[in-house]
């Protein structure tokens, strides 16, 4: 009877499906387990420096003011992030630094304070008690019998880690206090600007008020100071972003122009000659297989650092990619319209123009725009290697590990840039392909 056969066949079918629905997830799990072992995931948990992460997070949104005493010269300076070009002049001195009868006092959050006394003496006052440390010619003397956990003491250096990221360090050469403040100080105006330290209200008033410099309006002056900010370099950053987009633009679209004709040579329905086709295809493979990064290295000998080198690298890789994509699109074109035109006696160029191009144009255009967006991201990486654009700024800021707020700023800009490009390319795609 049919049912019995059916039952057996159906039973087999279901058990086969059951085997796969267990087998595939099991294989994935086994593989991931192998990778976890191979990558020493267990050891990583021990090595992970979450305090580094915390530091980074903190630095993303805050900055440090360093108050430093050169113990040899007995000279106290305050600066932002210890930068030479962000050192406060005496009249700009932060208000948590004050003179006392015996020295200079630095107020820190949560009731802590540090006082620089005479002869290298430093007094740290915390809600739990007061500690004294003295920097001498030969080392650091401290008399702290049971140092709390937040102290790191040797006879050449004493560090105390205080709440809210504050810190005190004493060595024989220098005594240094960090105080962390929220925000990106100097983001708008650096210390050399007349507009530094002014509130929004004051700036607003100044904008319409009488000119500070007779030859320039105050708004122009502000814009200029902002643009040439010596710490955040807004002008240069804007250029870098532009350069990154430029690299992506040139590379992508030039590659598109080059690869369209080449794609015809690689499509079996347009180039019957297998030798030519295979040769062109292998060239595409080579261009694509060598990553843009390697092309950058190769190109930089001939063209040196700069955006042109980056765009050439993108151009080379993308020619390979587009060549492959476009030739596939060409191989998939519907032959019917072509035959229709052939039957009217149209020549080959007319056939390509009127029966092939209208079919592949949407594919080509949407791929170009899609890659334009994705190359903007790629150009960030390439720029980091060949020296250009926002990628270089980011990479360097990260490697020197000093300016995490700049890193945060660059990351923000990059993500915004890519999202804008994504949006623009999406809009253009929708518009151009519809019309």
């Amino acid at each position, binding site marked *: 009877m049919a049912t019995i056969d059916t039952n057996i066949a159906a039973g087999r079918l279901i058990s086969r499906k059951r085997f796969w629905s267990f087998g595939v997830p099991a294989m994935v799990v086994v*593989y*991931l387990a192998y*990778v976890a072992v*191979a*990558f*020493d*995931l267990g050891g*990583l948990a021990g*090595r*992970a*420096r979450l305090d*580094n*992460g915390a530091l*980074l997070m903190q630095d993303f949104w805050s900055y440090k003011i360093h108050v430093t005493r050169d113990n040899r010269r007995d000279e106290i300076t305050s600066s932002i992030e210890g930068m030479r070009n962000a050192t406060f002049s005496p009249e700009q001195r932060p208000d948590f630094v004050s003179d006392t009868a015996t020295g200079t006092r630095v107020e820190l959050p949560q009731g802590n304070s540090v006082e620089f006394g005479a002869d290298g003496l430093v007094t740290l006052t915390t809600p739990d008690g007061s500690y004294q440390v003295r920097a001498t010619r030969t080392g650091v003397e401290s008399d702290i019998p049971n140092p709390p956990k937040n102290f790191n003491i040797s006879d050449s250096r004493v560090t105390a880690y205080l709440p809210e990221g504050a810190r005190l360090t004493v060595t024989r050469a220098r005594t240094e206090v960090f105080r962390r403040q929220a925000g990106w100080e100097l983001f708008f105006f650096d210390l050399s600007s007349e507009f530094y330290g002014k509130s929004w209200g004051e700036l607003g008033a100044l904008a319409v008020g009488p000119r500070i410099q007779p030859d320039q309006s105050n708004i122009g002056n502000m814009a200029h100071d902002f643009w040439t900010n010596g710490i955040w370099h807004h002008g240069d950053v804007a250029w870098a972003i532009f*350069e990154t987009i*430029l*690299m992506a*633009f*040139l590379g992508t679209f*030039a590659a598109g122009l080059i690869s369209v004709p080449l794609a015809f040579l690689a499509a079996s329905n347009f180039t019957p000659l297998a030798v030519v086709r295979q040769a062109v295809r292998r060239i595409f*493979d080579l261009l*694509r*297989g*060598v*990553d843009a*990064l*390697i092309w950058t*290295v*190769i*190109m930089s*000998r*001939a*063209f*040196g*650092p*700069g*955006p*042109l*080198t980056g*765009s050439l690298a993108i151009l080379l890789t993308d020619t390979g990619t587009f060549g492959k994509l476009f030739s596939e699109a060409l191989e998939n074109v519907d032959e019917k319209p072509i035959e229709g035109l052939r039957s009217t006696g149209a020549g080959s160029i007319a056939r390509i123009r009127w029966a092939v191009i209208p079919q592949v144009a949407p594919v080509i255009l949407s791929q170009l725009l899609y890659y334009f967006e994705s190359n903007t*991201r*790629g150009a*960030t*990486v390439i720029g*980091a*290697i060949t020296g*250009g654009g926002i*990628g270089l700024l*980011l*990479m360097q800021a*990260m490697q020197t*590990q000093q300016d995490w707020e700049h*890193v945060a700023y660059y*990351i923000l800009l*990059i*993500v*915004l840039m*890519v*999202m804008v490009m*994504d949006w623009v390319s999406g809009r253009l795609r929708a518009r151009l392909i519809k019309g």
Partner: protein
Amino acid sequence: MTTVPADRIAAAYHAQLSRRRAYSTVLWAVFVALLVAGFDMANSRNAGGFVAGLPKVLDYPAALIGEAWDKIGNLPGHMLRALPALVETLNIAAASTLLGTMGGAVMALLATSGLAPFPRLVPVFRRILDIARAYPEMVIALVLIFVLGGGPVPAVIAIAFHTVGALGKLFSEVAENASMKPVEGLESVGASWLQRMWFGIVPQVAPNWASYAMLRFEINIRASAILGFVGAGGIGYELRNAISWGQGRYDAAAAIFLLLFGTIVFFDQLTSMARNRLVRGQEQGQAGGRI
């Protein structure tokens, strides 16, 4: 016979044609102008000019290949030594593609209107995907290297994160085009959301999803090689060390490069074959349905 006379239509068409011609002429002109101006600017901001550099394009490859050729006997040894690094790179790519595909699939279903279990949150999930896609892998990798230390794990996380974004969007586009009929059919028998997705959507989208995931694997091999360049281990690291030392180690550079290139081309061909089969298999299935 007609309500609008033919010559009126002809006139309207003629006007439309001229407008279209003018429009596309302008578009092309703007495009070419942008390209030329852009090239000019890039050229002037580069250390070396395009024209001056062109004759020297082959200098570097020539030096590299020349040395590699002289020491051709060393190449197999170098390749053998780089093999573990290559395996690491491939593992990074595979693990991150797997994780990214799984994450992308879930995110895609959450971000597809019509399928999402929480329709109000669809825009939120879409934005999350946008952001995940916008982060260059390098940025995440560098930050993670700082926190987790160098090695493959930061690379896996970085690439997987980006893959979630990239695949999530593509997956959701595929899922949007999936027929809702099976889902409705399953809903009518009282199936829960997970069951509806698993039996109604996944079988429909599986070939396309798999095809995109494979394409992504191919891309991720390159990405993981690149991340090696900035310190995330694998073959990119070996390549960078050999290349940046320069003359004297070009044989090693060439060997590693050949290994990497071979691998990329191999997987490229493999996945494009597999993808062709997947997509063609699907078409055959549909044709079968029509007969």
